[in-house]
């Protein structure tokens, strides 16, 4: 039976996994990390939920969430400025004795009164480290049909050691029930990885939280998925669409530059399920007389007078005359001076690179320039 998505609440963890790119998350949450020329990472789970018919979403924050609040506003851009439901931001709540939460369970327990007051029957939990266009409707339906306690959204494929050791790896028995959960294992090869999206009943989640609080449990992966793997009926839902999982700076760069290939972009930016973001009302981008732009993504509000290749250029960036930008990611309002040459750079917001400067990172280790820096 099809579930009415109006009875499903989305919960997004804005801070989870932010240590994987701690340079970029120094002053912001994982959810507010800039991505793909005009987005922030939270736009993906939030748009996915909105497009799936979820009309009540809670965003759980921890630290440094000012930029996130600024980005989300009233959530009108995601069509979540609603009378019934809509967006709720749940900052850390006082009664977790340790202060800031240590894991998903504690974070959720901080908002337990909000969860208890909700009329939703089901919840979808999601992090901000996976860039994907996910329709949650079939996932919630599969969860209900299978009778599982928890459904984990997974992807099966070949994983490098780096990828596997930053993921939760799932093993299932013949019946499809999860029989083993390895959290950040040292392994490689074909495996089934958790995409940090979970579906369960609201009532069940509240039970888990109360039980977890009573026993001092805080980690959803270790204290629920691993500890209760035999006790609970945990199942997987295999996601076979396009996605990128961000687990370090290199994978962050790759997740961005992969979208330069129009075939990849077509799989992520679906016409019937658009990815929404905050609107900046930039003018369109201007390509000047002698500019050369190839294999790149350019957002609005840019003025390009130099050369750009294999790069992702965010809103409001200026690239001066004779400048050469290659294999780089230039975030919002960055200015590259005349005749500057940059290669394998990740420039955060409002970076200024002076005229004639040469800056280069490598493919393995892109050079990151912090927000507002002048080079």
């Amino acid at each position, binding site marked *: 039976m099809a579930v009415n998505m109006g009875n499903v609440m989305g919960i997004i963890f804005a801070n989870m996994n932010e240590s994987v790119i701690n340079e970029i998350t120094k002053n912001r949450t994982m959810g507010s990390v800039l991505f*793909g*020329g*005009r987005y922030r990472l939270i736009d993906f789970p939030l748009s996915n939920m909105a497009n799936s018919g979820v009309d009540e979403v809670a965003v759980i924050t921890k630290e440094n969430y000012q930029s996130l609040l600024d980005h989300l506003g009233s959530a*009108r851009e995601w069509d979540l400025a609603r009378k019934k439901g809509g967006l709720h931001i749940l900052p850390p709540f006082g009664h977790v004795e340790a202060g800031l939460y240590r894991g998903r369970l504690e974070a959720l327990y901080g908002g337990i009164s909000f969860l208890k007051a909700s009329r939703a029957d089901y919840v979808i939990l999601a992090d901000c480290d996976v860039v994907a266009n996910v329709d949650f409707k079939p996932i919630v339906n599969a969860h209900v049909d299978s009778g599982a306690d928890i459904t984990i959204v997974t992807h099966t494929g070949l994983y490098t050691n780096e990828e596997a050791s930053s993921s939760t790896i799932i093993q299932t028995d013949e019946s499809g029930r999860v029989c083993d959960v390895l959290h950040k294992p040292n392994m490689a090869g074909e495996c089934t990885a958790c995409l940090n999206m979970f579906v369960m009943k609201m009532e069940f989640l509240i039970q888990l939280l109360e039980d977890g609080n009573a026993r001092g449990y805080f980690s959803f992966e270790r204290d629920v998925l691993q500890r209760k793997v035999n006790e609970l009926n945990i199942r997987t839902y295999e996601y076979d669409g396009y996605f990128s999982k961000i687990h370090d700076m290199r994978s962050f760069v790759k997740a961005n530059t992969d*979208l*330069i290939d*129009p075939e990849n*972009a077509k799989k*992520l*930016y679906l016409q019937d399920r*658009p*990815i*929404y973001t905050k*609107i900046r*009302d930039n*003018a*369109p*981008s*201007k*390509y*000047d*007389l*002698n*500019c*050369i*732009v*190839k*294999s*790149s*993504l*350019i*957002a*609005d*509000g840019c*003025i390009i007078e130099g050369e*750009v290749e294999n790069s*992702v*250029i965010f809103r409001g960036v200026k690239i001066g005359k004779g400048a050469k930008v290659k294999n780089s990611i230039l975030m919002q309002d960055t200015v590259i001076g005349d005749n500057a040459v940059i290669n394998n750079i990740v420039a955060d917001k409002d970076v200024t690179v002076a005229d004639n400067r040469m800056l280069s990172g490598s493919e393995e280790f892109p050079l990151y320039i912090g927000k507002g820096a002048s080079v």
Partner: protein
Amino acid sequence: MTMFNKKECVAMLLAGGQGSRLYALTQSVAKPAVPFGAKYRIIDFPLSNCINSGIDTVGVLTQYQPLVLNEYIGNGQPWDLDRIHGGVHVLPPYQKASGSDWYSGTANAIYQNISFMDRYDPEYVIILSGDHIYKMDYDKMLTYHKQNNAACTIAVIDVPLEEASRFGIMFARDDGEIYDFVEKPKEPKSTLASMGIYIFTYSKLKEYLIANENDKDATKDFGNNIIPALLANNERVWAYRFDGYWKDVGTIDSLWEANMDLINPKIPIDLYDPDWKIYSRNPVMPPQSIGKNAAVQNSVVTEGCYIDGSVEFSMISNGVTIEEGAIVLDSILMPGCVIKKNAKIEYAIVGENSVIEENAQVGSRPENVENRDEWGIAVVGHNLTVSSGSYIKPKQIISQSI
């Protein structure tokens, strides 16, 4: 009935005209809803000017093909005009107990909405039109109006003498007071052209609108009736000189030129000024993707485009696809159109969602045409297909697929 909040100044935007000189481009949409400047529609300019000037109550008078325009304006949120009091209101003609009438002229359209203006009890009303591209601070004009204690202030701009016969021409004394006015004179003797922007002291406006309505011979038009009547009665009518960029986009040529002006660094209209943004309804699309075979120069491009061909001196709107080998020169591509492989677009306007198939050609450079009189901008209307290998000649306008 007066609403709770009085508004000092209410804007009335005339957006009902057909814009028949844009031919295929206004066959199914009203002129103010015609796409402009890659990510805008013409009406974004007056609406953004209103909010940037501190006017938060705008009536948009619609009549001709209003569907696209109505949907575009919506609740006014993109222009910050979704307000508890005021905001933007679409005002089509409506049926009254006394009967029902289409808007039969600019003055009649405003007359039919006196009850709308009355609700805000305004001191002043500014009348705007939906077919000009410009950035203007109406608040400065209002201050000027108040300083002169005028009944009506008309924004004017200096135009070249040879173009003056296309405009309403004002004669003003040195202090700015207008003493004569001629609508589209054959032999113009002044170069002060009316920009079609009027500020009225509301009590005067109402008085003259009612008198005009009762005059059976009147054409119910501001230029033909209301302004001459004010002058005939020695009312205080003042000219407010504007010296910024202002362009009427009522014809194919002027629409094309105004778009090209945005590419020209010598033309003083800055859309990048953070203090005077031009707002528009956002199409929700990913950034523009420039392919490995692309060459884009001297052009303006916006979100959702995929470009793998060559583009020069052109205006590329949201969601346009230009495939490998296609050439786009000195042209305007409206939202969603597709230029297939090796197709060629030169000095042309391609309407929304139209598809130009492989090897087709639309328009041509002036130097490739022997008889210059036969040269002009080629136009493909909205939602059409130009089949593979076909040729749309310069100056040709098509409103059906070929």
